[in-house]
């Protein structure tokens, strides 16, 4: 059941990241729109349009319908943001939050890949640990905040731990699924060609699992962005989450909205960077997924 879900998720995730040429082929062709559908810069135009519409309706709603204190209009938010950006306040919070995400995410992913590859390969170990993993992965990072604070205090370590926690299980489950799905025929073919067990493992099974691992990492990256905020709200004296918390205490809705917008932007930018990195370095491991 679990592996089924993992597979479905990964296929959906990967197809999102597939090259534009492949995506374009699948698009239903609507004759009147064809010129636009293939026009260069179409994606950019649509994105810009979407954001413009959102800002416009936000401005109208917050000015004429809702209380502008509860929903500050975008121009007001931008006016608040400029000094926060210029003074370096935002940047300081962003960089501290991001360093927490990066450390926890990197360590969590690496640990999960090593562990997942072993578990995917050693049936006995897997059967022994699987029930525990199945239970533990329901402990979201948020649920772990109180105990993390007691264990690690409100310093960096507790945040690293919480991000690690959120990343680890997602990448782990995907890695195991990927190792399991390395085709038997491919392993046997390698064996016939003269590869020993270690070579089969390193040169065949792990590359075959790569698309699953990368997919798990992308999902875990998104989850890290989700979980750093509550962690910082409840147990930190710096970072975007702390900015949110502090602004809320002082009823500074403008600043809250600046922080929220920052989170949106960061998540988006990080996912793009991740995809770009994958495309640059792992393309050959990912490309075949969309085709076969």
């Amino acid at each position: 059941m679990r592996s089924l879900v993992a597979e479905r998720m990964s296929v959906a995730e990967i197809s999102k990241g597939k090259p534009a040429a492949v995506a374009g082929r699948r698009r239903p062709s609507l004759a009147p729109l064809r010129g636009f559908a293939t026009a260069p810069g179409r994606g950019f135009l649509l994105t810009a349009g979407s954001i413009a519409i959102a800002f416009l309706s936000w401005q109208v709603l917050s000015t004429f319908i809702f209380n502008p204190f509860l929903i500050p209009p975008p121009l007001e938010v931008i006016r608040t943001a400029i000094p926060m950006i210029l003074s370096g306040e935002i940047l300081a919070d962003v960089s501290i939050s991001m360093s927490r995400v990066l450390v926890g995410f990197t360590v969590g992913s690496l640990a999960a890949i090593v562990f997942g590859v072993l578990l995917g390969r050693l049936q006995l170990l897997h059967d022994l640990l699987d029930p525990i993993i199945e239970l533990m992965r329901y402990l979201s990072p948020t649920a772990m905040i109180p105990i993390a604070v007691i264990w690690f205090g409100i310093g960096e370590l507790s945040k690293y731990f919480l991000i690690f926690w959120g990343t680890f299980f997602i990448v782990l489950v995907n890695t195991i699924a990927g190792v399991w799905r390395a085709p038997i025929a491919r392993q046997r073919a390698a064996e016939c060609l003269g590869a020993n067990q270690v070579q089969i493992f390193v040169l065949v099974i792990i590359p075959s699992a790569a698309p699953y691992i990368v997919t798990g990492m992308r999902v875990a990256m998104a989850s890290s962005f989700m979980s750093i905020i509550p962690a910082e709200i409840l147990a930190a004296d710096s970072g975007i989450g702390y900015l949110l918390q502090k602004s809320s205490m002082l009823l500074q809705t403008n600043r809250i909205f600046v922080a929220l917008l920052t989170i949106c932007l960061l998540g988006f930018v990080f996912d793009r960077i991740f995809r770009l990195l994958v495309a640059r370095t792992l393309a050959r491991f990912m490309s075949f997924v969309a085709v076969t």
Partner: protein
Amino acid sequence: MLQLDKVRKVFPAAPEPYVALDGVDLEVADGEILCLLGPSGCGKSTLLNMLAGFERPSAGSVSCGGAPIRGAGRDRVMFFQDAGSALFPWLNVEENVRFGLRVRKVPKAQWAGIIDNYLRMVDLDRHRNKFPAQLSGGMRQRLQIARALAVEPVVLLMDEPFAALDALTRRRMHAVLLEIWQRTRKTIVFVTHDIAEAITLGDRIGIMSAGPCSIISKIIDLDLPRPRDLADSAVARIFNDIERLLAPDIARSEERAAQ
């Protein structure tokens, strides 16, 4: 070259163990093409897996060149029907062939020559930088052939390698395989459920009975010149004989599948 002696293979299954093969005797001579033909589920692939060393017989012996087969050996290479999963999709054509040379520690200086030779043999040298996903089904199978030949095996074990190809491509692959065979004289064990394919390729055809407890019920010598034309009366007669021979077993295997 290859020898099976009273081979029995039992798979654990519920409610009772499944006896796939029971008393299979077979000898494959050096440099011949032996086709194994039988209805689905007759244990052809199991037999091939044992020759490859992926599986062990439950009783009896399987040997290659007089030595019992205990695992995948450097002298025997298996071919798979699903080239998409058998090839390394993250390696391009050239790198796929190189894989075997690398893991077998063939001296680097020889790589280029060997790769060129076999890619040219299967007519893929112009596509050496493509990835398997960019190749057609027939090209992928040719790549599998080149990759296997590059490590210079003595025996090729082919598990319905062309079954998933369209009829025209399959015919082309038969010609490619026969040409390579005539040049290299490898020993080939070719599993198929296609009578025409078995007749086109084989020096001999081993007919397998439907499972459970399959055996090689008959060996047919094909003393006919190649290329063989199915419209030729001698060839057509053999085709009909085999069809008649297989009919009751096909019925049996269908009935079993329906249960």
